[in-house]
Structure formats: C-alpha cells, structure tokens
C-alpha cells in the first residue's frame, strides 16, 4: 500500500460562541497520497476552510478539534504540543490564503518576510537565505526579483502578491501545500496564470496539494480527487472524472447545473437550488440537505444518511439515502446491473 501523506479520520471541529458550541465540521474523512491533489468544493460556511485550518491547527482560541484524528506523514498531529506543531507549520505543511492583500504584513518588505521563514526552518545564513529567496521568487515568475525582494507588499499587484505567497509557501519544500481559495480574489486572466504556475510547480516538486475552492471550474482544472462539502459534512467523494461525469448527490448535481457554462444555451432557464444553506446553530434533522432537496423522502427528514459507497466504483462515495437500495441490491448481485 502506498503511503498517505495525510490521513484525516472522522474529524469533528467545534467552535465556542456566545450562543453555545457549534459543530462546524463533522465526520470528515479523507486520505491524500504523495503528489496527489485533492479538491474541496462547497459554498460559504460549508466547513471547507475549517477543515484545512484544522490540518494546520490554526483554529484560534475558540476552535477545537473535538473528535477524530489527523495523521500527517504517519504522525498524529491533533494532540501535538504547540512547539512541535510550529516546526511542521510553514515547513512541512504550508498554506496559501485567499486574500493576498491581507496575508502579507504591510510593514515588512517581501524579503524580510521570506527570510524570516527560510532562516527559521532551513537554518541558512542571511546571505544564503537571501539568494535562496531571490531564486524562489524567480521560480514563481516574478520579474526583477532582485529589486522586488526589497519592496513592500503594497507596491505589488494582487497576482504578484499571490506569487510571493506561493514562493513563501514552497520555499521550505513542504510535503503538503494547502491552498485556500488561492485565486478567488484575482481576475480571470491572473487566475489562469496562477493555476498554470501551481500545476508546473506540482510537477517539479511532487508536493501533495489540498485545494479549496467554491469554483467547480478551478477544481476541474486542478484536482485528482474531489470532496464536495455541504453544511460541515462531506456529501460526495470521487475522483475528478467520475464526479463531473456522473455526480450522484442531489446537491452536487444542483451545484453543477447552476453554473452557467460557456456552452450553456442562454434561452434555457438556469437551474437553481431552492432555499439557502442552513445555519450552523440550527442544523436540520436527518439529512442536512433535505429541505432543499427535491428527492427528499420521509426517511431523509429523520435519519442521518451515512457515506455510502457506490458499487462498482473505486472510492465513489455519497451521503444520500437514494443510493442505499442500490448498495444493498448490488451487494446481492455481484454484477453491476443496477438501475441508477
């Protein structure tokens, strides 16, 4: 069996709020191999960012991993003391954030911020570190890297800042790179540049990537396998081709149909999922999607569906009662003759 870089098992994360504790991520399980890219897709508040922040253990004072384990490189990190975690964070696991405008410190030069990280984790001298930082900046396609390194973040455009973030994130050669909406704040042409860059760097370094996005287009471009999250849970999991060719969960299907494709016929009415995402304080009973689902039955309103494996597929799993019979029937017949 191949070694997984990251194994997340039944992760549950809760936050303390004024109105009591809320569980923002529940029963999230996935594995990530070396060099593999996993995409996490979902709407705002579905828990995709919290999942990634839990891997970084950056949940703040109010957040807490309640249940489950996160194994990074074979090591359980949920209980790791903070000083050991600091050795991993930024070094073996690094992260690119959504807002390149706010995630760089405005009062320090680019070089200053890069050198801090490189010297801390890689034990280089000042001049070595500087040369290395310039190298990294060149690698991510920053022109005039020797001058840019002494500039302050406000001098750079959004795309440039995101390149600097990527250079910083990759400078310690991490085993795992978490990219939380890395291109959401950027224009489409710049987004295309950044995605190309990430693909190129992934090929060179064999880094595992966790990419989080609300944009199915970005996920289709980048990911090998995909988790679709809704209201804090994984509702569907599959490799990228299976997911886009044959989505199963009503939410995934709805999500895909509600994007106006470039090939979309403009006379046709756009499909939209009725209603809104439920509030964390008031999660519906049973399936969390049932209020917005057109296939919902009695069972959906009362019982929580488990993550069911679609028969005849490798790792296509879906959290929906609709596929329960299919699973049982398919268990009876060994052949794949199930009517979808």
């Amino acid at each position, binding site marked *: 069996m191949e070694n997984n870089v990251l194994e997340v098992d039944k992760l549950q994360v809760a936050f303390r709020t004024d109105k009591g504790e809320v569980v923002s991520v529940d029963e999230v399980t996935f594995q990530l191999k070396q060099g593999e890219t996993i995409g996490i897709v979902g*709407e*705002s508040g579905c828990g995709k960012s919290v999942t990634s922040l839990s891997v970084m253990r950056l949940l703040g004072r109010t957040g807490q991993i309640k249940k489950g384990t996160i194994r990074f490189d074979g090591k359980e990190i949920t209980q790791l003391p903070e000083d050991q975690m600091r050795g991993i964070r930024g070094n073996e696991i690094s992260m690119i954030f959504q807002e390149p405008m706010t995630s760089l410190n405005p009062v320090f030069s680019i070089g200053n911020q890069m050198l801090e990280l490189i010297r801390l984790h890689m034990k280089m001298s000042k001049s070595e570190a500087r040369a290395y930082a310039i190298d990294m900046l060149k690698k991510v396609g920053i022109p005039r890297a020797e001058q840019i390194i002494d500039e302050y973040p406000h001098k750079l*455009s959004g*795309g*440039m800042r995101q390149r600097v973030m990527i250079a910083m994130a990759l400078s310690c050669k991490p085993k795992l790179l978490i990219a939380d909406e890395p291109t959401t704040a950027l*224009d*489409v*042409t*710049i*987004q*295309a*540049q950044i*995605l*190309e860059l990430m693909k190129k760097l992934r090929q060179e370094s064999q880094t595992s990537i966790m990419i989080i996005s*609300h*944009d*199915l*287009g*970005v*996920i*289709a*471009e980048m*990911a090998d396998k995909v988790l679709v999250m809704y209201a804090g849970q994984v509702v569907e999991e599959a490799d*990228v*081709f299976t997911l*886009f060719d044959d989505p199963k969960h009503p939410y995934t299907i*709805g*999500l*895909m149909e*509600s*994007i*106006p*494709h*470039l090939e*979309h016929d*403009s006379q046709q*009415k*756009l*499909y*939209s*999922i*009725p209603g*809104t*995402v439920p509030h964390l304080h008031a999660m519906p009973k049973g399936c969390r999607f049932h209020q917005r689902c057109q296939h919902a039955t009695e069972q959906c309103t009362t019982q929580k569906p488990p993550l069911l494996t679609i028969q005849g597929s490798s790792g296509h799993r879906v959290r929906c009662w609709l596929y329960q019979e299919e699973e049982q029937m398919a268990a009876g017949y060994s052949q794949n003759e199930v009517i979808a």
Partner: protein
Amino acid sequence: MPKLSENPKPLLVVEKLKKYYPINKGIISRTVGHVKAVDGIDFQIYPGETLALVGESGCGKSTTGRAIVQLDPPTEGRVIFAGQDMAALQGAELRKARTDLQIIFQDPYSSLNPRKRIGDLLAEPLLAHKLAQKSEVSQKVDEILEIVGLTKYHKSRYPHEFSGGQRQRIGIARALILQPKLIVCDEPVSALDVSIQAQVLNLLKDLQKEFQLTYLFIAHGLGAVKYISDRIAIMYLGKIVELAKTQEIFQSPRHPYTQALLHAYPIPNPHLRNRERIVMEGDVPNPANPPMGCRFHTRCPLAKEICREQTPDLTKTTHAVACHFPLV
C-alpha cells in the same frame, strides 16, 4: 430576445464618455496626473435588451455604470437617456430621470443601511420621490417584496438578519419599486454563492420579462453574462475593445483580449483540462499611465509595430472590434 429592428431608437446612448480622477500630490495638493478610468467609450442600449460590460478589475466598467446614473458625473462626453442629456437636467427633471434609471450594487452587505428595517429601506425611495401617499406605501412595499421572492413578514427585520442572496433581493426590490426603465446591475451576483447566483440571475431575467426592463449588466466573469445578456461589450483599461452579440463573442471572438479572457475561464469539465489555450502574460498596466497605441499591446501575443504607435478605433460594424489585426 429584444427585437432590435422594431426598436431602432435606443433607450440609452453613451457618447465619448470619459471619467478622469485627478492624482493630487504635495502639500498644496497639486494635480500631477489623471487616472483615466474611462477614456472615451460609446455604446447604445435598446429598450428591453441586456448589454453586458465585462472586464477585469480596474478596466472602468463600474465607473461607467456610476457615470450613467450620475453618481459620479462624467468628466467629458454625454449620457443621453430617453432622448434627454442627463448632464443638462436639473432639479425636478433630474429627479424624474433618476426614478427611471436605477442601480443595483455589488455588495449586498454594505449597500443596505444596517440601522433601518427592510420596510423603511424600501419605502425610502418612494417617499423621497413623492411617488406614493403615506397610506399606499405599506401596500406597495408588500407587493414588491412578493415580486422579488420575499414576504411581507420580512418588513420589520433588519438587514443583518438576511443572507447574502436575500439581501441582494432587497437591493433589487429597492431599485424596482420606482418602476425604472433601465437598471444598472453592478456585479449583482459576484459576492454570492454559486447556488444563490443562479437564483438571483433567474429572478433578474424573470423581472425583465415581466416589467420590460432594460439592463446594463456589469460583470467580471463571462459565465453569468452568457446567460443573461443579449450583447456584450468587453472593456480593457478604460476602452471598449469589442462589442457584439453574445453568441458572436463566444463563438468567434475577434479581439485577442476577448479570446484570452475566454481561454482563461476555468471550464468545469476535467476532460478539457489539458486543452490548448493562450495564457496571457503580465498584469493590467496602470490606468494612470496607460501604454501608447493599442492599450493591450503589452500583453498581446500578436502585437506588431503599428500597435505600439496607433490606437485602433472601435469599428462601426455590428460586431465592433478595436484591433489592428482582428482575428477572423
């Protein structure tokens, strides 16, 4: 689809519109230059149609929208709405014109006053324009809430109690309550989640049919635009580089920038991930100091000598393009 031939008279004509913002420096705030946010654009919108204005951030698309509704009056050029020059209007006439010309803003979180109840927010435009008696206001507000998919029970609530999509519906209701002819939609779905975007786009489309509305739809993404617009104008650095029917823009783009935009759009189909495409290099130049000649030449894969020297004009054809070497 609007029948362009039956309605030869445009509802809105924009002529040589320019909007410059001064750059002031020093203790006496001397003007040292101008940011040429919009630098001479022309277009017409016909009754019942949707014209989309598409471009990257800083291309001047929102400035154009604001200049049209006279929130930021243009530096030069004319905005002619229903045969009247907006700049020449004053007092009561301007007020009247403003009821016909409404705007929906991008950010549903900051465009509603957090201290006012929804009922008051929606009644305000009616009272300000004296379009309804106090006694009728409440009923009109109820009606409009129904139309945008909310209920009259929402009237006594405050904006923070609503989700992004619902707030955008309130923004739409606020524009719609004055029964305008033209609505400038300034990125109305950009801040919303995918599943909510579709709801709001459908609502806008239904309202257009029901009330014969005309839209100027401003967007940075091509997806929503494809769905809602009849014609698309592509802007780059304060100028329109291409203007054509939606179908033509998507099927046979003529400006290299339009093509690059189409190529850059991530397609939600993993089988197409290794498709051939042009990835544009570099960033959008600074609008305070735009490049000479064609403004796109610094990033254009086809740029030649003439592109650096001469600014190409937008052709007068139905598929208008501003390029020395348009694609076929």
